[in-house]
């Protein structure tokens, strides 16, 4: 496996695409390209930008999404166009696919459709890894994953990123070949023995009593301990519902809900998106009824320490092989929480994998990955506020 990376910050979008793609092609020194992954900040999401990349790359499949910031080994950029070109060995294979109109079709059905498409031509071979890029504003991301895994199976990990815009929460974009999509999900299924390591961590710690979600449906929590769900935050933060309705989305970045998962060291986090008039909470990702939950607290230090642990997990799973490249799906909330220290997270990643590691990362509105514990092996979850590290080592 060979990889090459290209990046441009040029304000002229077409020129930026030309520069970045050109740089990546030169980097491969004539080796045939199999797959291109493109990440751009929101102002580069224009059909012509994708068309430019497509014209330069020919018939090579393209996947990717929009983001509020791009992480490279050189730094973190709030504006830019990044491309990763992958050349696979003959023993490896892959298939790409996309599903559109996720909300209209319902997430579960859309997930199943994508799974079916990804499996096309790959049913009789050993599958290793699937990476997906979905719209970060899809309300029921959990069922998208469930539907997807119903068809793909759970014998191999599925990792993914929910595309972001620049904190406007209006529209996010997904790239699939020549198409600039929204409300969609695109992905790739790898097979044939790709070696990779994966780690996902957040760093938040539980605080206060264990509570029970007594009434919930999907990502809507109606009651906690038999009371309106919002009471949890009213009690802890000493703020009334009106005040919370203005601030809870931001505050819940610091104090999300953590779902207790037996056998897991870390809780599964859920951010609050909004409060309904009846005091129900809408979360980013589902919370099953009867879940044991706790309010979580995080600090910049615990966040950064978790980034280190995610990298170590990913490295460990590579079984001694040196990573060919590292892909990071980092929560937009962490970017916001870390403030001036967001660069420190990149330093930690580079300390773990080496200064010269080809690295590409994005800030996401949600991360998808399996849990570490054996009890959960095979099933992927929607995570919040986590850093999702995927280190690919080749065959």
């Amino acid at each position, binding site marked *: 496996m060979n990889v090459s990376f290209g990046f441009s910050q040029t304000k002229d979008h077409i020129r930026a695409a030309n520069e970045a793609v050109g740089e990546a092609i030169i980097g491969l020194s004539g080796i045939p390209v199999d797959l291109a992954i493109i990440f751009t900040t929101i102002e580069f999401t224009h059909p012509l930008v994708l068309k430019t990349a497509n014209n330069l790359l020919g018939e090579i499949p393209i996947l990717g999404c929009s983001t509020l910031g791009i992480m490279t080994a050189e730094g973190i950029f*709030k504006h830019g166009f990044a491309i990763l070109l992958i050349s696979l060995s003959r023993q490896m294979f892959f298939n790409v696919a996309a599903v559109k109109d996720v909300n209209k079709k319902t997430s579960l059905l859309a997930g199943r459709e994508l799974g079916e498409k990804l499996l096309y031509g790959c049913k009789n071979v050993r599958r290793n890894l699937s990476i997906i890029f979905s719209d970060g504003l899809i309300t029921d991301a959990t069922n998208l994953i469930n539907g997807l895994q119903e068809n793909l199976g759970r014998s191999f990990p599925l990792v993914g990123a929910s595309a972001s815009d*620049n904190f*406007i929460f209006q529209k996010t974009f997904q790239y699939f070949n020549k198409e600039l999509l929204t409300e969609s999900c695109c992905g790739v299924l790898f097979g044939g023995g790709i070696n990779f390591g994966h780690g996902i961590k957040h760093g938040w710690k539980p*605080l206060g*009593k264990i509570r029970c979600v007594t009434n919930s449906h999907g990502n809507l929590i109606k009651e906690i301990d038999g009371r309106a769900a919002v009471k949890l935050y009213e009690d*802890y*933060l000493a703020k009334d519902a009106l005040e919370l309705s203005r601030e809870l989305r*931001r505050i819940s970045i610091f104090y999300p809900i953590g779902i207790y998962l037996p056998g897991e060291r870390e809780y599964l986090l859920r951010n609050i998106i909004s409060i309904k008039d009846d005091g129900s909470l809408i979360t980013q990702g589902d919370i099953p009824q009867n879940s044991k939950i706790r309010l979580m*607290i995080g600090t910049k230090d615990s966040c950064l320490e978790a980034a280190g642990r995610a990298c170590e997990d990913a490295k460990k799973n590579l079984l001694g092989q040196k990573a060919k490249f590292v892909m990071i799906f980092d929560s937009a909330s962490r970017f916001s929480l870390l403030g*001036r220290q967001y660069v420190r997270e990149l330093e930690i990643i580079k300390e773990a994998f080496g200064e010269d590691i080809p690295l590409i990362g994005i800030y996401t509105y949600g991360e998808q990955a399996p849990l570490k514990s054996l009890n959960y092996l095979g099933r992927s979850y929607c995570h919040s506020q986590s850093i999702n590290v995927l280190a690919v080592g080749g065959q």
Partner: protein
Amino acid sequence: MGIALLLKMQRLKDLEKRTEGLNASLEEMDEQAKLIIRTDIELNKTQEELDKKITGLSTLQKLSRQMSTTLEEKQIFKKIGNEYLEDLGFEKSSAFLWDALAREFHQYLSIGYSEEDALKIKNAVNSDKDYYLDLMHGSKTASSVFVPQGFLPKDKVCRLFQVNEFIICPITPQEGNQGFIFVGTQNIETRITEGEREIITILANQIGQALDNARLFEKTWRSQQELEMKVEERTRQLSEALEKVKIISKRKSDFISSVSHELRTPLTSIKGYAAILLAGKLGAVPDEIKERLGKINRHSDELVHMVNDLLDIARIESGKVNMNIESADLSAIVEKVADLLSEQLKTKNISFNMRIPEDCRKVMADRSQIERVFINLLGNALKFTPEKGAISVNATCLNKMVQVDLTDTGFGIPEEAQEKIFDEFYRVDNTINQEVKGTGLGLTLVKHIIEAHRGKIWVKSKIGEGSTFSFTLNCA
């Protein structure tokens, strides 16, 4: 059985008590957790505010440096780039200055908007200009957190500028057109803080100061341009006048030279014939005629002297005299001249002192010309110093120059005459000058000779105390 039941009940009671205790502890811990979270919220808020302030201040410092490099109004706004705005936590900005003559706001900055949107905003601002003028004149800041009374509703501003949060701050330079700057963000996670309001206020003040500087510079530059033009015009006039003066001066020198030459020839004849007549070569001359002839001869001598002086001055002025400047012994020159005048010194019983230190002796001079200088100056000193007076010549050496001071105990020169004394034909109005004839050219000639040696000459004098004529020569 009964006992066993009792024991079990007792144990149940104990367990209940322990559970109650544990629950109470759990509740207490939960209360503590609430306190921790509330404190943590405050800490996070403070930290966030501090982070914003640090980033904001560092950005302001960079911006201030950038803005101070330009003294052009439009360029000041161009320095507020995308990157700086993002560092301040905003991605959209617009700035306007009020044109009092046209009675409308002109847009000077637009970041994060298409040309079409920018125009729409400009038109809308001008439609609601009274609200913005009121904000500007009242030096009030509006934000999505606080909208001053009488200003546009928050939602209307948000819709117009396509943002969720905003700050509008007046730009109030001390002179000239005022305006306002708008900054905003679509980020729904952002809440405008007091710190951000302060930072944007500082930015608006910096813009105001930069505008003041630019306007002051413009004013100064214009004044300087006018002044330069005036100076140029005056210099041109002076140059023309100087050229005219030079031409006139040359004509004067040429005229004097030519007239002097023309005078000298007949004078020589007059003097020659007078001498022949006086010598009686053409026959005996009666005493009365002899006396008249003597006068003719004497006056002719004076006239020759005057003509010679005039010729010399004209030559030196026109550069026709070749100064043979070489190393000369100053003491020897002074001694020679003193020797020439020794008879007159003795007659008037005037003491003469010379003090020329060893290191001042060697000067660069045309010996014969410097002798003329001393003859003139010592001659004058002798003329104006009463009997039993004193004349001294002192020399001092400083910075490779020798200063010669010739001091007498004469009558002194009135202050008003000291400036004119070196002018041609100027003679101090005193009794001696009325009695003793002179050309009024001696000191003019002296000045020309000294200046031809690249030296300076001046006089210090006090009536009744005497005079000191000083001049400088280069050391050899």
